[in-house]
């Protein structure tokens, strides 16, 4: 398996929006390398033609009927938001997406 670089760490941290201070990058680099170590064992197994498992109990089409159920009250929906205004969650920056 490929060795990781500090750049990989920066990229991945940005991908999942977790700010890692510069001085901690090496620490996370070493943790990730250790974490990926067992994966080397994969090379020993032949998985040609083997299906993937994404669920173990084999059910299909577990859907629900199109029926309305009660929603949360506005109060409960907003309960844990840090910044609230007139029933909205707010953030202090403007999203610039040309809308």
């Amino acid at each position, binding site marked *: 398996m490929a060795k990781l670089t500090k750049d990989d760490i920066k990229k991945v941290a940005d*991908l*999942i*929006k977790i700010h890692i201070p510069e001085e901690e990058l090496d620490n996370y680099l070493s943790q990730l390398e250790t974490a990926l170590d067992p994966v080397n064992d994969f090379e020993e197994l032949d998985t040609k033609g083997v299906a*993937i498992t*994404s*669920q173990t*109990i084999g*059910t*299909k*089409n*577990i*859907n*629900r*009927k*199109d*029926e*309305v*159920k*009660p*929603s*949360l*009250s*506005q109060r409960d*929906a*907003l309960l844990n938001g840090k910044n609230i*205004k*007139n*029933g*909205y*969650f*707010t*953030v*202090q*920056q*403007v*999203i*610039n*997406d*040309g*809308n």
Partner: protein
Amino acid sequence: MKYEPIIGLEVHLQPKTKSKMFCGCDADYFGKQPNTHTCPVCLGLPGALPVPNEEALDKCVKLALALNCKINKESKFDRKNYFYPDLPKGYQISQYDLPLGYEGFVEIDIDGDSRRIRLTRIHIEEDTGKSLHEGDLTLLDFNKSGMPLLEIVTEPDFVDEIEVEQFAKRLRQIVRYLDISDADMEKGQMRFELNMSVRETGSKELPDYKVEVKNIGSISVLQKVIAFEFKRQTELLEKGEKPAQETRGLKDMTGETLSQRVKEDSEDYRYFPEPDIPPITYSDEKIEEIKTTIGELPNEKKHRFIDQYNLEPSAAETLVATKRKADWFEDSIKDISDKALIAEIAKWYVGDVIGLLKADKKSLSSLKFPPADLAKLVSLVKEGKLTGTLGKQVLAKMYKTGDKPDDIVAAEGLEVVDDESELKAIAQKVIDENPKVVADISKNPNAIKFLLGQIMKETRGKANPKTAEKILESLFA
């Protein structure tokens, strides 16, 4: 240097359902107070789990079948992972490599010819919340979050904005016919995303860049965006520059687009199969069952109207604009076999009945008289029992009161006066009263028209104009 555009479209359509895609929140959120149609699932609270809406899935398959798609009988949901404040879970539940529908097409009419626009895929996913600007703040409302969304992706088959317009209108018409969606663009139920590049005319290669314009909410703006982008991109190409591969947003409703400050790395969505939702399968039986609910589509109906009723293509097109309009029309002519009469009824329907409704901004369902009454009225006129002009008057009365045409004619004494001796007498009277005009007869062809008008006035519009004209001419022969 001449250039041509390569255009592909992505349409986002909100199917009509009572509840949201993965939870039971009421789907009728439009115009409601913010954050009042949410629950742990669509608000993305820790621990919540999605359960798919069966009706939304069936509507997706129904649309795919109606648009000539193949169906992936073994399908699934996937997570599309990215961050945005209006995306509460930090991922969107969507479909990646096994969309419910793929490889379909929509036929549009361009200048009387049929053109086929190919569809790459149709899949189902969930919508995000809504963000609003207020000064320096962004306000977030999650009522829309978790609403079902059908995404229709076309191949880059369009050659100009007219084809795009026709496609968008045809698609909207079809989804309304199928009762899959109201496609009300003002409520954001149908939105467009444009993919466009430009190349030298005649070149067979696809350009190596693509510009994306997101969140276009009306067909007219879509056309303007295409025109703007064509100009912008050709200008760059003519200068020897290549337009940047990027996502742009709308500046305003004029079609002008802006480069977005959001950095556009090709985003790594880290798709993987949604572990919280078991696979979705559609059996052949279930697909057949859904097929039977599709019914006749607008294009089919239009061609049938042309063949069966001998109608002009443009008349047929208007008649099939909505299923309800078409059904009302067919209802009105169901006991009639005379093709000429049918054509007349079509004319009155399109010109007058629809006209009245449009002027009042009312819908067909508010019409006070039944379809059969229109047929009756038009046959009265065609049979010569009622003049055309008075016919319109009767129609207006029917529209207002719902009274039967025969009753109105009788009550107001509007039967046509067709008796030749009676008309001869009146004609003579008119001639006698208008010596000056009579004297001009040989010189002024309009004189006959004037005298005819006077006869109509005398008879309060009831004279059969053809008979009256014939009599006048015979008197001057």
